[in-house]
């Protein structure tokens, strides 16, 4: 950890709002704030895990970072180059550097193209290599992801889910990217196949020095693969820290609840797990609550939380959190920062973190 690390990606106050239109004139009547001001860095060669519940903005964040959208505002720097405001033709030249692997390998492979064709497509688009050289490269990629070369002329439907995901990964690797957004790459796979794909991603990372943004709702798998982890809730990053730090000493009440909800494949541990059961559902991202966006479900909510949006701060070195409980300035100065929540605070208290 002592080696100074190089930032490959720097994201600042990124927003991606989708307009909601209505009425005869299809005027904009509101916005889905899918990503609503997130900031983070990804260091070269590391894996940043992004976790959070369905609809919290993980995919949107990944796609926005790759500029698959015209972002609403914010800054995205890759290798020092600002791409947040870059036009499409300039972006095209950046594309080979940054790739994406998707959740559903079925949906993103053209069923009428052979495996070789699918993997070679980005090479053709970017005019890299020709004829024989290109086929060489396809074979090389198939080897790298553990696909049998003899299958090069088969069509995607002849492959299993895990193999299709390998095809998707080979295609993403074709242009020698440095940064890959993996959006739930194992969510559609069977438990017995997931480890195969995760180990492959780790092997490729070592081999090619790749940097990953690994999006997943599987906290156990993210604990395995990520170096640092960001927890998203309702379009925001509520907590970000080194993996072990986050899993051992979560600071944000949402992170605590999310982790406590994960079932453990061990009846002895399950019998002892203290679950924090959150009440209610995630609010709509088009109309997030005032103040802290978690205040409607937070077991530790205080008066001030409903009024003031907590600042995203570095509570400990490298450990960022957006919660008043971890803002000494607020906790010391705010007389109303006592318990007023529906649930008494000490009922689910963990490790005395928030004393």
């Amino acid at each position, binding site marked *: 950890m002592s080696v100074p690390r190089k930032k490959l990606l720097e994201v600042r106050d990124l927003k991606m709002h989708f307009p909601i239109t209505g009425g005869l004139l299809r005027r904009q009547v509101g916005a889905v704030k899918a990503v609503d001001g997130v900031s983070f860095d990804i260091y070269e060669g590391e894996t940043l895990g992004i976790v959070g519940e369905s609809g919290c903005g993980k995919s949107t964040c990944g796609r926005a970072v790759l500029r698959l959208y015209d972002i609403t505002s914010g800054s995205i720097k890759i290798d020092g180059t600002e791409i947040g405001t870059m036009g499409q033709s300039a972006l095209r030249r950046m594309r080979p550097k940054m790739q994406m692997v998707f959740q559903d390998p079925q949906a993103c492979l053209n069923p009428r193209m052979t495996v070789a064709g699918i993997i070679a497509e980005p090479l053709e688009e970017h005019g890299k290599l020709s004829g024989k050289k290109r086929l060489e490269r396809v074979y090389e990629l198939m080897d790298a992801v553990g696909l049998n070369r003899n299958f090069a002329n088969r069509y995607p439907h002849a492959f299993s889910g895990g193999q299709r995901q390998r095809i998707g990964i080979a295609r993403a690797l074709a242009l020698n990217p440095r940064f890959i957004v993996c959006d739930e790459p194992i969510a559609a796979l069977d438990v017995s196949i997931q480890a195969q794909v995760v*180990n492959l991603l780790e092997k490729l990372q070592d081999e090619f020095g790749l940097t990953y943004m690994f999006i997943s709702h599987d906290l156990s798998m993210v604990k395995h693969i990520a170096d640092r982890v960001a927890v998203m809730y309702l379009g925001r990053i509520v907590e970000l820290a080194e993996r*072990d730090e986050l899993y051992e000493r979560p600071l944000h009440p949402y992170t605590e609840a999310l982790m406590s*909800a994960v*079932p*453990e*494949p061990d009846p*002895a541990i399950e019998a002892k797990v203290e679950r924090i059961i*959150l009440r209610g559902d995630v609010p709509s991202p088009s109309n997030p609550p005032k103040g802290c966006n978690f205040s409607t479900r937070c077991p530790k909510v205080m008066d001030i939380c409903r009024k003031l949006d907590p600042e995203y701060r570095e509570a400990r070195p490298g450990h960022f959190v957006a919660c008043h409980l971890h803002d000494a300035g607020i906790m010391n100065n705010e007389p109303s920062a006592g318990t007023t929540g529906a649930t008494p605070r000490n009922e689910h208290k963990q490790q005395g973190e928030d004393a």
Partner: protein
Amino acid sequence: MPDGALPVLDVRNLKTVFRTRAGEIHAVNSVSFQLRPGELLGVVGESGSGKSVTMMSLIGLLPSPPAEVRDGNVMLGDKDLLKIGEDGLRAIRGRDVGFVFQDPMTSLNPVFTVGFQIMEPLRRHMGMDKARARKRAVELLELVGIPDAERRLKDFPHQFSGGMRQRVMIAIALACDPKVLIADEPTTALDVTIQAQIIELVKGLREKLGMAIIWITHDLGVIAGIADRVMVMYGGQVAEHGPVREVFANPAHPYTRALLKTVPKLREPRADKLRVIEGQPPMLGAHPTACPFRARCEHAFERCARENPPRREIGAGHDVACWWDHRTGEPV
């Protein structure tokens, strides 16, 4: 779990085949299990291992053709559900046997109000009049934790969140006080915090209502948290079955053993490298004459390709279908 009690459901040698243009698919092969009063049986296995087809076969919910239940007995009390015909089954579904499926959106009818859909089985099976059914519907929605139940009766399914729709499904399944509740991946489509809510709910309802539950999932963690017994399926067969603590502590089948090792654990130290199960799940194109796991099994030997192993008892209520003995590391 009362061991001596008569099972509420007794399934013997169930065999279900799909006849498709590409040939037969032997989805369920000689599956047997019993469900005792008040217990929760967890069924785990990867997709295509036959979990859903097994349960749909029991209550005659598979389209035929292509499905054909070729063999077996399914005793619910003294009735064989495979012999009572569609009319008999209709009287049982939703009354003696309630079910909840994975996707609450497709199993609730979008054009009827939630209230109508809860009241319908009450009126049909229990002969309640509208006022009584309505009162009971409100009670049921309250039971599953839907706030403001009275008012929400007139809402349509799309006006509820995923977690709430699953609660509604559970309310419908419980409406007629079934003896058996079959829940097929009821939380797979939900977020973990919502899953935790539903599991908490079912645990509470079990204590209150005492029905027997079959809970299908591919998540070993969910099984570990709620099941009394677990049945591990692979390739349309029961690979291993036993008390949940026993199976997790002393897994006997090479598939169960590998599965438990391959999943990363949140509350245990992180492993440097994940253990992999090589290969792919089997095709189910023919009646199996060999062990379906053999292509992926690290202990496979010559006999495994020749004979499909029968289930054999290895402990109290614990059995395994395998030619290899996990205690000696040798063939049996």
